[in-house]
């Protein structure tokens, strides 16, 4: 198989023209027609001034149009950036400036931020009467395909360039239950996680179901469209637990973003399907490991064995490799790994060392090669010189009756450093005062000093717990 993204996409479209590529409210768009429309749109964009290397923002909420625009930009060799239409203008302008965006592709009625708008006439641009393809040469493997943004440890966002080659390799590394099928990621394409997966499906010949839904409708939609693979955020998985209807038997459900608590996994398997897979990955690397039911039975906090092609080591602060079962920093090398951050040499030097990505996650490898996640190194709290990892508190609290989900976080104190606190989503019967004593008994000085009941744990678009938010709310006195 060729590693070139475009060659690969073209081959799939040519070899499987009848296979559904996109399913949405308009019906089915098969790969043959999908490819044709993508290349025609690329020609249209070229006629409207876009050149290889131009960084282009996409601000299109419509799922099908967004994907057509995205693939057309890949064809032209224009690095693309999602500029979500739901983001406030200040965030959109910051993205335009930071990424050097030359133009923004938008749907009709979109506003202009700091870059010229191009509003494609999709009907005309993709019609069979339009030119078949752009004139520009197909971009090389090392050309930048996408600029992904992520939350930075320093409070500013980081921009991760992913090349065509990396996009293809990350698509191949992801764990799939079958080579073909219907994938359903019920979040909008303007978010990073669904966007990445829709692109990966397009270039590996997988069918994407594009259908906005309430979580209660997800099982019915899965039945109606014959979904084989469902990808959920932790919050969606949590919501689905409460839904009486079940996803059809045999569907594999992947939940990404962060470690999913043991009780939540158990509840999901019990109420929805046993085929629950928890993914461990990073935008910089793609998927790294995946844990299915077997792994969780043996290692409750395991995130699985590294996927084929992924090299993973556990090292100490000096980079020395550690023996099995000893927790340290996780180092990763994956086939489709990024090589750094745009315009941030300092962060690049910190995270990318000697050909490894070391993003600050901690963990241990068991004797048989299962990665057990230990938390974020930089989430470590220091209470009067005592090191406390949120995961340590969460692991204990999850064992308490009625705790559905929880997140430990620091309240910043000018005197004591980080005062550990615990936010809990609990069943009605969950006794928070008793939970605090329970933690104190098991954790001693590393116990949370306050336990707060919340309706939900704040998470970012990637599903990671936003401890900073909780800390800020604590500092503002919200939890007093």
């Amino acid at each position, binding site marked *: 198989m060729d590693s070139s993204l475009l060659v690969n996409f073209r081959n799939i479209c040519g070899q499987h023209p009848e296979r559904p590529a996109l399913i949405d409210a308009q019906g089915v768009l098969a790969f043959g027609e999908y490819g044709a429309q993508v290349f025609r749109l690329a020609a249209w964009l070229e006629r409207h001034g876009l050149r290889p290397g131009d960084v282009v923002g996409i601000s299109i909420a419509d799922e099908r149009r967004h994907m057509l625009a995205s693939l057309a930009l890949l064809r032209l060799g224009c690095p693309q950036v999602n500029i979500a239409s739901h983001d406030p203008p200040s965030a959109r302008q910051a993205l335009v400036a930071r990424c050097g965006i030359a133009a923004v592709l938008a749907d009709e009625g979109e506003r202009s931020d700091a870059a010229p708008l191009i509003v494609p006439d999709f009907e005309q641009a993709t019609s069979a009467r339009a030119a078949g393809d752009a004139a520009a040469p197909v971009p090389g493997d090392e050309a930048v395909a996408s600029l992904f943004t992520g939350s930075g440890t320093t409070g500013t966002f980081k921009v991760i360039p992913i090349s065509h080659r990396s996009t293809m390799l990350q698509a191949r590394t992801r764990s799939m239950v079958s080579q073909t099928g219907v994938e359903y990621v019920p979040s909008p394409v303007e978010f990073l996680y669904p966007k990445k997966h829709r692109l990966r499906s397009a270039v590996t010949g997988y069918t994407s179901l594009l259908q906005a839904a309430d979580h209660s409708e997800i099982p019915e939609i899965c039945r109606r469209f014959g979904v084989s693979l469902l990808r959920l955020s932790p919050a969606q998985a949590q919501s689905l637990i409460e839904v009486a209807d079940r996803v059809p038997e045999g569907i594999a459900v992947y939940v990404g973003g962060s470690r999913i608590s043991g009780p939540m996994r158990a509840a999901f398997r019990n109420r929805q399907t046993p085929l629950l897979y928890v993914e461990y990955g990073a935008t910089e690397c793609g998927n790294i490991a995946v844990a299915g039911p077997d792994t969780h039975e043996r290692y409750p906090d395991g995130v699985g064995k590294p996927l084929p092609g992924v090299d993973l080591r556990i090292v100490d602060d000096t980079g020395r490799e550690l023996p099995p079962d000893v927790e340290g920093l996780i180092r990763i090398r994956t086939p489709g790994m990024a090589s750094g951050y745009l315009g941030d040499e300092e962060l690049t030097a910190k995270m990318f060392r000697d050909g490894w990505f070391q993003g600050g996650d901690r963990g241990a490898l068991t004797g048989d090669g299962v990665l057990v996640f230990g938390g974020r190194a930089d989430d470590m709290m220091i209470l009067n010189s005592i090191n406390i990892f949120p995961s340590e508190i969460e692991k204990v609290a999850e064992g308490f009756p009625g705790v559905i989900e929880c997140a430990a976080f620091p309240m910043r104190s000018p005197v*004591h450093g980080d005062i550990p*606190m615990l936010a809990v989503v609990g069943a009605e019967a969950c006794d928070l005062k008793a939970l605090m004593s329970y933690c104190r008994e098991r954790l001693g000085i590393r116990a949370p*000093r306050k336990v707060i009941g919340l309706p939900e744990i704040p998470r970012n678009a990637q599903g990671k717990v936003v401890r900073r938010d909780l800390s800020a709310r604590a500092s503002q006195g919200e939890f007093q």
Partner: protein
Amino acid sequence: MTSPAFLAMREKVLAAIEANPAVGPGSPAMLERMNDPARDCGFEELGFDSLARMEFCIFLETEFGITLTSGEVETRPSINAMAAYLAEASAAG
């Protein structure tokens, strides 16, 4: 020493003692004395050590937003001395 500000702070100090995981429950006689603003009770008598002082401070901070160092607790070593100190600090803004 019975101003509303003092009494309010005294309640907070008592709460911090009661919740302190590093301090055992007091005897009934001790509790009676603690609850009487006219009488005082030393932290040492209550079994305060360095860990208890830290927990005392943390409780006041997480529950009431009052920042306090262990050193300040050491130098105001009784319920009333601490309550008076906090009331004064609060009035000074």
